[in-house]
């Protein structure tokens, strides 16, 4: 087996704020193999985006990496100087953000921005880079690429801008693509197109893809493997089919059961996860999901359970995983009984 493209080992990221310390990422270990698509899913505040930014060396202050390692193709990235990191970004790793308007420079033509990415990292002449930029725009399905290359970002629709971002991201054939909620800002019909383009672009340059999303529908259609995050920790790491058919962590099970589905029966009530995610300033001592878990026992509150392999090879962070089966469950609480 080949070595992973990306490895996170016990990564920990904290933000010191006025009210205390936010433990955004709390010991995350995960790897992405060559050509593989790993989805990290979680809700707001689960730490998925912070983990991705840590890989890019882009943790904004007051955040800082307080423990663990990030390795890209075996090379340790934590503590790398900014100058070194710059050589990596856009070359070996490239990131696609949720909002392409804020990541494309509004003052430069789209084609020139892609060409710049090529000349900064590559040995291409300006002219060859322009030519390649047009080819890349064509590759991501932008019609009339020679014309659109001369457009400014605001002249493109949201879907077209995201395609241009993808073109720029694959310009230097990175080993790893990171896409953070790449289609969240888009309409559903456009989202389907952009995901298709992203998959094709990934195949074209044979990159691994780290997909950060809250949308389990997108995960099902895109990922090979899924890591579910809750309160800064991975609670389950499994192949996409295993995760969706037999989720094993109580949070994964409850999350899947709470999803609205287009093939639902009319008036079908959704299963509910009671309560709210924990305050990241004051995480519970034991399992962070314990206060909302339908299967909680005393042992859950004593210490944080380890993320450990179970019989089918997947990783689950739950002390009771062996005794619980893998059906999606939640709690069908009557609406008025919910307490804050």
């Amino acid at each position, binding site marked *: 087996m080949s070595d992973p493209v990306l490895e996170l080992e016990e990564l920990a990221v904290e933000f010191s704020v006025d009210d205390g310390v936010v433990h955004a990422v709390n010991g995350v270990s995960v790897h992405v193999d060559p050509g593989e698509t790993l989805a990290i899913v979680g809700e707001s505040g689960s730490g998925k985006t912070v983990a991705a930014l840590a890989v890019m060396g882009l943790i904004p202050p007051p955040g800082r990496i307080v423990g663990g390692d990030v390795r890209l193709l075996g090379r340790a990235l934590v503590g790398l100087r900014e100058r070194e990191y710059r050589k990596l970004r856009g070359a070996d790793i490239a990131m696609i953000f949720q909002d392409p308007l804020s990541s494309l420079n509004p003052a430069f033509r789209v084609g020139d921005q892609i060409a710049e990415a090529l000349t900064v990292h590559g040995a291409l002449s300006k002219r060859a880079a322009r030519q390649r930029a047009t080819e890349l725009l064509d590759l991501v399905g932008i019609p009339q690429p020679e014309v659109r290359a001369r457009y400014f970002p605001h002249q493109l*629709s949201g879907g077209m801008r995201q395609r241009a971002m993808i073109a720029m991201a694959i310009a230097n054939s990175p080993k790893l693509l990171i896409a953070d909620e790449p289609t969240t800002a888009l*309409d559903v*019909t456009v989202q*389907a197109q952009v995901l298709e383009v992203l998959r094709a672009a990934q195949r074209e340059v044979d990159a691994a893809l780290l997909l950060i999303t809250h949308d389990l529908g997108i995960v099902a*259609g895109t990922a090979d493997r899924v890591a579910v995050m809750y309160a800064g920790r991975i609670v389950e790491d499994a192949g996409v089919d295993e995760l969706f058919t037999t989720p094993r962590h109580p949070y994964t099970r409850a999350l899947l059961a709470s*999803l609205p589905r287009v093939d*639902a029966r009319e008036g079908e009530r959704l299963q509910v996860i009671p309560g709210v995610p924990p305050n990241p300033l004051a995480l519970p001592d034991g399992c962070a999901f314990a206060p909302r878990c339908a299967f909680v026992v005393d042992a859950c509150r004593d210490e944080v359970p380890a993320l450990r392999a179970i019989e089918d090879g997947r990783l689950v962070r739950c002390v009771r995983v062996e005794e619980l089966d893998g059906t999606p469950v939640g709690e069908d609480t009557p609406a*008025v009984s919910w307490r*804050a």
Partner: protein
Amino acid sequence: MTTPVLELDDIVMHFPARAGAFGNRGDAVVHAVDGVSLAVQPNETVALVGESGCGKSTTARVALRLLEPTAGTVRIDGQDLAQVSRRDLKQLRQRAQIVFQDPFASLDPRMRVSSIVAEPLRAQGQGSEARTRVPELLGLVGLSAEHAGRYPHEFSGGQRQRIGIARALALAPDLLVLDEPVSALDVSIRAQVLNLLTGLQDQLSLAYLFISHDLAVVRHIANRVAVMYLGKIVELGPARDVYAGAGHPYTRALLSAVPEPDPARERVRQRIVLRGDLPSAIDPPSGCRFRTRCWKAQDLCAQEEPALVDRGHGHPVACHFPE
């Protein structure tokens, strides 16, 4: 037959096109809503679905008379809002209330929850009832009386949405217009709020006009669905029929694009990929507005606008060549 709680009759809403940096664009208008007719019956949920720019939120605002329509009639409980006196309009407005998408922007950060929920009562001169009504309303939405003294920032997104719903219920309306009420919420919280809405509807016999871009959410809550595209309703029918046997190509494309949390099905599914972008609402296509992106379009589609009528689906579809 019962009187609908809300009736929209041939609503047209045009906005003057925004002036550009180098002067205005003459008499150009944005055709945000163009001839929408829709009725919501008591205790019924009608969903208005469509993508950005289709006019669904504008329609919702016209329904509440937050916008004065360019043409068309809005009736609440059978009464034409344009015909009634100012005083009656105030009365009628109590019957229909709105819940907004963003639970952070729609609550005044400087007001305590008690004042937020009591505000509609005060506006209608019923402030003296606040003392008894506020705890009742908070209880209805699953909050407790001790939350009344707190400020919005002390609550999570889901709890804030509950506060917004309590405020909308203060005047005991017949109809709630819900404008993307769960779109800003996390998955685990979304189900709580959706179930709350379903429960409240049963308990209080409410009618809902539910505005959403999320077809999975709509499937769970709607009795009937109206699909909008570029200012017009293209299909309108019972949710079950529209989801199982959509007649309009746009509805088909929309349904085929929804990602499902099922890897096996995602692998084999055939998506209908629409070509091109949404045309400008300043200069919408002639005939059928969807024709520029439709794989079935023929000459007729450019010449003649298809009427929204039953074409053998058991519900109306605005297409010359329906599925």
